[in-house]
């Protein structure tokens, strides 16, 4: 027993929840400032970090602020002053941050945040639903959706490299409870050599500047244009860093999108987050029945790798499975995919944490296609 544990320790494998994986990633990514406010199901990210700092394992300043609005404000302030920052939230906490999410983008502060996705009330619902972060689509944050716990760790590690290269904030999203509270043995790869200390000058007291004063129409327009170009340009950066992480860790963690049995597939499910993991099983079930199905998992929702998606899905019948709803529009991922591929099939499953099993996915797709 003891030997097994020791062996695991050498391999840096730990059995962690998704939220703990977030915290360990932030620690190993040399985060130096964390502002946090508890909200279910993201609470244990902040709890774990405060414990790691308290135990002296993580060298960072932790501030238990009085609201999520203040958590994001403090992160923006600390990031502006040159530190690498982190926070985590969910649902109403994310909605409460909305103003500061925009602010972080226009301030070009590379804040990274974990979002344990959860439905928004009323009625109170603490279970998984991606509508909270997807409704922040137009803030300019880059958004990655993870499908398992290892991916959470790896994605946060890569998120810092991306954020600091393109100078945009990044959300790393994962389904509340399904991923935030379930456990799995994961490789807690040390990140020395992959991420160095953040090297930002911060505030220059000798050559003072004024940040964020009145911005006349023309200068504001160019600021926004530059942000748009930075989001678009981040696609290449993400691809490079994904490759670098593969070489560094010997582990391939897709950051843009990932296909499963796409080559010969006639029909393709498109999904994100934990549902995409279940959809993989659904593909197996349907293949067992002789149906040529495949899966496209979208990892990077913002920026959406439109050209890659178009190339991967051309000539195939597409079924988008959403765990989100924009009332009056439908599934949010479906809406985005329609803008790339034209009208495609849509299924909305699992809102408010309704369990999405492979069988449920298969049943839903069969109904969509008029199967009995």
């Amino acid at each position, binding site marked *: 027993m003891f030997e097994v544990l020791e062996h695991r320790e050498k391999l840096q494998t730990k059995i962690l929840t998704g939220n703990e994986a977030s915290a360990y990633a932030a620690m190993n990514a040399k985060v*130096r*400032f964390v*502002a946090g406010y508890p909200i279910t199901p993201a609470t244990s990210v902040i709890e774990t970090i405060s414990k790691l700092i308290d135990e002296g394992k993580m060298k*960072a*300043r932790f*501030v*238990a*602020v*009085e*609201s999520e*609005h*203040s*958590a994001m*404000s*403090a*992160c*923006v*302030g*600390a*990031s*502006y*002053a*040159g*530190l690498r*920052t982190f926070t985590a939230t969910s649902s109403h906490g994310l909605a409460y941050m909305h*103003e*500061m999410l925009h*602010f972080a983008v226009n301030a070009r502060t590379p804040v990274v945040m974990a979002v344990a996705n959860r439905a928004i009330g009323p009625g109170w619902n603490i279970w998984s639903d991606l509508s909270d972060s997807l409704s922040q689509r137009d803030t300019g944050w880059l958004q990655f959706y993870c499908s398992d716990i290892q991916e959470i760790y790896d994605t946060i590690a890569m998120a810092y490299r991306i954020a600091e290269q393109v100078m945009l904030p990044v959300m790393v999203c994962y389904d509340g409870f399904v991923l935030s509270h379930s456990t799995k043995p994961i490789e807690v790869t040390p990140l020395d050599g992959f991420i160095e200390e953040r090297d930002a000058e*911060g*505030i*220059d*007291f000798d050559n*003072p*500047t*004024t*940040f*964020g*004063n*009145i*911005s*006349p129409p023309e*200068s504001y327009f160019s600021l926004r244009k530059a942000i748009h170009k930075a989001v678009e340009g981040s696609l290449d950066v993400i691809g490079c860093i994904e490759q670098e992480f593969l070489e560094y860790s010997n582990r391939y963690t897709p950051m843009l999108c990932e296909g499963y049995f796409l080559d010969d597939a006639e029909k393709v499910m498109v999904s994100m987050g934990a549902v995409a993991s279940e959809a993989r099983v659904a593909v197996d079930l349907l293949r067992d029945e002789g149906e040529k199905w495949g899966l496209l998992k979208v990892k990077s929702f913002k920026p959406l790798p439109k050209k890659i998606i178009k190339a991967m899905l051309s000539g195939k019948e597409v079924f988008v499975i959403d765990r989100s709803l924009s009332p009056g529009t439908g599934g949010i991922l479906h809406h985005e995919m329609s803008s790339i591929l034209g009208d495609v099939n849509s299924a909305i499953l699992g809102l408010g944490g309704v369990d999405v099993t492979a069988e449920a996915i298969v049943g839903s797709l069969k109904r969509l296609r008029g199967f009995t």
Partner: protein
Amino acid sequence: MITAKLLPGTAACQGCPSTMCLRTVLEALDKAVLVVPASCTSVYMGAYPHSAINIPVFNCTFASAASTATGIKGALEFKGIDAEVVVWAGDGGTYDIGLQALSGAAERNEDILYICYNNEIYSNTGIQRSGATPYGAWTNTTVSGKREHRKDVAEILITHDVPYVATASAGYLRDLYSKVRKARKIKGFRYIEILAPCPPGWRFPMDRTVEVGRLAVETGMWILYEHIHGEFRFTGLSRSIVEGKRKLRDLRDYLRIQGRFSNLSDEEIDEIEKFTQKKWEKLKKLHHELSHS
């Protein structure tokens, strides 16, 4: 080399109390960064790429001044940089929308200096009532006069037990200067609130800002004090009044000079007088309790 910290050519109204108070505050500071939420100051400092403030400035959102300052101070401390983080906010950003973040930062005893320039209105959006607007005052959202008395954030912060709370007035810049100098030497959360008479908002001629700022204190409508590590003391003219060395002027002298009070009835003036009296008694009691405990 330009050494002035507030440069000439701000876009402030003539007679603006904020500019002269800010100049005084900046001169009292050495190495500092200013955090400014949405306010008149965020406008009059000038438009990008220019600025009238010659120290590092971070403009933040209305509700986030104290929390943004928390982040900036946290980063500077972590990097071992010794510099003051100073919030410069109006009463809107302090009394109302920013109160939550202010209270949070005070409770955590963040090492920041928070200065509220209180002109008793939302002046930047064109003169609307705030939580600091006094009873009876006209604003664009209290056209027949405000029906509620003002709240008192300095008192709220005293109950937070922060190391330093002080009041000041645009009428007494030397007093303001010395309070900022004193606050600088104290570690932890420090709060200074300046009564800032606003000519267009209060409707008085722009060359009388200092006079109105003095009248407020002379008539007892604004009380100068300090609360240092739990010790309360009246300061300046307010101290002379309490010690009986100086008589209070009739508060009508203060009300009469301002167009915003022009429609007050005698009953309303009595109501203001009663409120002011109560405030004095409360602070005297605080002075007594804290000095004899």
